[in-house]
């Protein structure tokens, strides 16, 4: 391998960034946008928590509370939980399959600019007079009411994000299916790639349903169509059906890539192949397919016929099975490994720990007999913050730390990364575990104020303390990542000794990734750590 000197991609000038079609730069642009919005959403969450510290309205009015809820939900869902995986996918997918770029590099840039346009629109809603208070769900008829704020913002933000997701997903699916380097079969593909394939297929089939739903919202509001008006033959539940037809599968868009990251990291630091890789692949697709058959559990109390609820309760709980398979396979990947407790490993072990709690508390929400009491209570909030809030965030941060040397060519500070993790785990468990309890006690969701019930007050006070610790931990972890781009020590090309293809190029990767298309030998496998050792011996 001739060591050609090249300018690392991140030292490019402004013009090269703006007009870039390089998947790595676009991946970084997604990541930075995503993180900025994660921080805004996190701050709005802190505002919400401070308001709930005591009953009564201390810091904000009901309307600004509702706005904070909306910002928190929309930003966390679309910019963080979905957006961050656009970053990982863009950056890593071509590297992992040995391609120079994605299938449609210009379309890829366009996807980002759609995302960017949506970001600017979202920031505009912060201006007075443009506040949206319809939450990330935007249920009609409420969202058509003046009280909810301008629905045009909400609908157009969703449209732009949808265009971004759709273009990005098509791009990555075609890249994945057609541009794999010789020697990488479907069976040899990283689980990360399988997860992204499934996730992007879900995006392609799901996003249009949401786009359709918000288009109807737009039409109903500004052109007086009858979609959600029961007096003219419409039905508000149509929106909920379409919305959840996308928005339930979208939680797998969020969590499947997290599973992919977990699989990569757990294999690397156990130094052995993933246990039951084939069943892992089937589990991914099982989740993706079942994911489209469960959306009604979000509507268990919305007045649909009881027999529909029962059918969907069976499909819903069945999704626990492939998810369980994944967890068992991870645990058995540890078996007879040689486990190194590096920072990324600690992050994803924490993610599995959190996911297990989140997953187990998700099962009863699929049981109507249980859901009837906790639907739209803080129990639900706690459940999806364990799963999408913490398991996803910890996996994403695990990924940040794992691929950090690849992204930047430097190492982060181990100490601060670990301090951050400890604080995150203490804070989030204090926060969200008590949220389960306050939910079981009956506390409804989306309440700016609550009645002075003794036990609720105590639980809310402790939760707020937990949320501050969690915020501090995340702040330290993010700050460490930022500061280390300048202060971190130089990293080797392959610090974790992984045979996965992205680690076989220099850090940071050269502009064209590979000087020539790699041909992977017969005995290579992304999780075959002995193969790598043999290469070194040669």
């Amino acid at each position: 391998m001739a060591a050609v000197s090249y300018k690392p991609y991140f030292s490019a000038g402004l013009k090269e960034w703006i007009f870039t079609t390089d998947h790595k730069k676009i991946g970084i642009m997604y990541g930075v946008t995503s993180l900025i919005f994660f921080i805004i959403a996190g701050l709005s969450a802190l505002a919400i928590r401070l308001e709930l510290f005591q009953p009564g309205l201390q810091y904000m009015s009901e309307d600004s509370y509702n706005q904070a809820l909306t910002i928190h939900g929309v930003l966390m869902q679309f910019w963080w939980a979905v957006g961050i995986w656009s970053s990982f996918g863009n950056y890593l997918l071509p590297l992992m399959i040995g391609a120079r770029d994605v299938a449609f590099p210009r379309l890829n840039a366009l996807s980002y600019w759609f995302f960017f346009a949506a970001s600017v629109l979202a920031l505009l809603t912060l201006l007075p007079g443009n506040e949206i208070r319809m939450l990330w769900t935007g249920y009609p008829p409420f969202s058509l009411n003046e009280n909810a704020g301008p629905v045009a913002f909400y609908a157009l933000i969703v449209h732009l994000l949808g265009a971004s997701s759709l273009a990005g997903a098509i791009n990555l699916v075609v890249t994945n299916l057609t541009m794999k380097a010789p020697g990488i079969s479907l069976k040899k593909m990283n689980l990360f790639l399988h997860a992204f394939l499934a996730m992007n297929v879900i995006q392609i089939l799901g996003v249009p349903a949401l786009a359709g739903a918000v288009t109807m919202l737009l039409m109903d509001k500004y052109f007086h169509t009858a979609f959600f008006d029961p007096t003219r033959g419409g039905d508000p539940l149509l929106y909920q059906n379409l919305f959840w037809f996308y928005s339930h599968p979208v939680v797998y868009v969020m969590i499947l890539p997290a599973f992919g990251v977990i699989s990569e990291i757990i294999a690397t630091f156990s130094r052995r192949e993933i246990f039951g890789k084939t069943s892992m692949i089937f589990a991914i697709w099982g989740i993706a397919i079942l994911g489209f058959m469960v959306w009604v559990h979000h509507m268990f109390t919305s007045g649909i016929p009881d027999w529909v609820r029962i059918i969907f309760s069976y499909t819903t709980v069945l999704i626990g099975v492939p998810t369980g398979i994944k967890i068992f396979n991870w645990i058995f990947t540890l078996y007879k490994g040689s486990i190194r407790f590096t920072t990324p490993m600690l992050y994803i072990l924490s993610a599995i720990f959190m996911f297990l709690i989140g997953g187990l508390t998700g099962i009863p929400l699929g049981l109507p007999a249980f859901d009837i009491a906790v639907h739209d209570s803080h129990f639900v909030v706690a459940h999806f913050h364990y799963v999408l809030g913490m398991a996803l965030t910890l996996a994403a941060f695990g990924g940040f730390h794992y691929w950090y040397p690849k992204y930047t060519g430097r190492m982060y500070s181990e100490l601060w990364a670990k301090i951050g993790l400890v604080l995150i785990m203490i804070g989030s468990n204090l926060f969200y575990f008590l949220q389960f309890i306050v939910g079981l006690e009956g506390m409804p969701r989306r309440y700016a104020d609550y009645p002075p019930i003794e036990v609720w007050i105590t639980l809310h006070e402790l939760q707020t303390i937990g949320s501050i610790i969690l915020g501090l931990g995340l702040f330290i972890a993010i700050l460490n990542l930022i500061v280390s781009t300048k202060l971190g020590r130089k990293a080797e090309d392959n610090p974790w000794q992984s045979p996965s293809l992205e680690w076989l190029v220099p850090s940071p990767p050269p502009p064209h990734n590979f000087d020539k298309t790699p041909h992977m030998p017969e005995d290579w496998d992304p999780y075959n750590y002995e193969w790598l050792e043999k290469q070194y011996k040669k």
Partner: protein
Amino acid sequence: MAHEGSHAVHHETSVWALPVGLSTFALALAAIAYFTWHLPLLAVIAGGIGLALLAIGVAGWANEYFSKGHDEGLGFQGIVWFVFAEVVIFGAIFAGFWMARVTHADVWVREWVPEGGMNLALVALLTLILWTSSFTIWKAEHSIEHGDLGGYRLWLLATIILGSVFLIIHAWEWLHLWHKGFTISSNMYGTGFYMLTGVHASHVIVGIAMQLILLINSGKALNKKTPARSASYYWHFVDLAWLLVAGTAYIVGSFGKF
């Protein structure tokens, strides 16, 4: 290896994604300015800028695509996946239409169908036009495969004309129904009818735009045949979707009692 010398293929930068991306922002802003800020002047300006950016961006993009690099043939797969997404978009509106049709079967047939029913002869004519255009675009694709540039241009032009005629007749039909008092806000039949046919018409417009871009760049089409195949595939989908759209909006909508 097929990728040998692909340094030339790989564009580090392209100026054309940004204007297209910004155009969507300008258009969104125009809608917001009009509907929620009530500033029609700003809406017109933003909308104008948006459309101009879109036209410039798409034209530049197409030109760059046709003049640089070689045909990698991936675009066809991209369109196939995109059509899957389109099916779901139509599915969402169909769901709304059919749900209302079933739950309000009574009042639908009694009160919602416009007087005199729907003009089915016209639908037959529209179908005929659209399906003929499916044939002409297939001929265009066939011509370019065999290197017949003249035939390609001719058949493409024929498709564009047929598509436009379809739109004109369709627009006339809408106006006619609208004047009869059957509007998009009358009831769920009106809403469903105009949304289904309107969304379908917007796809016809996109299809015609694709064909126009192909026609403008047809000078360089001989070594880039994937776009023609992709546009043709998309157009077949639009024509096939018409069968369901027309069947639902006209026949299911105005007949029967179920």
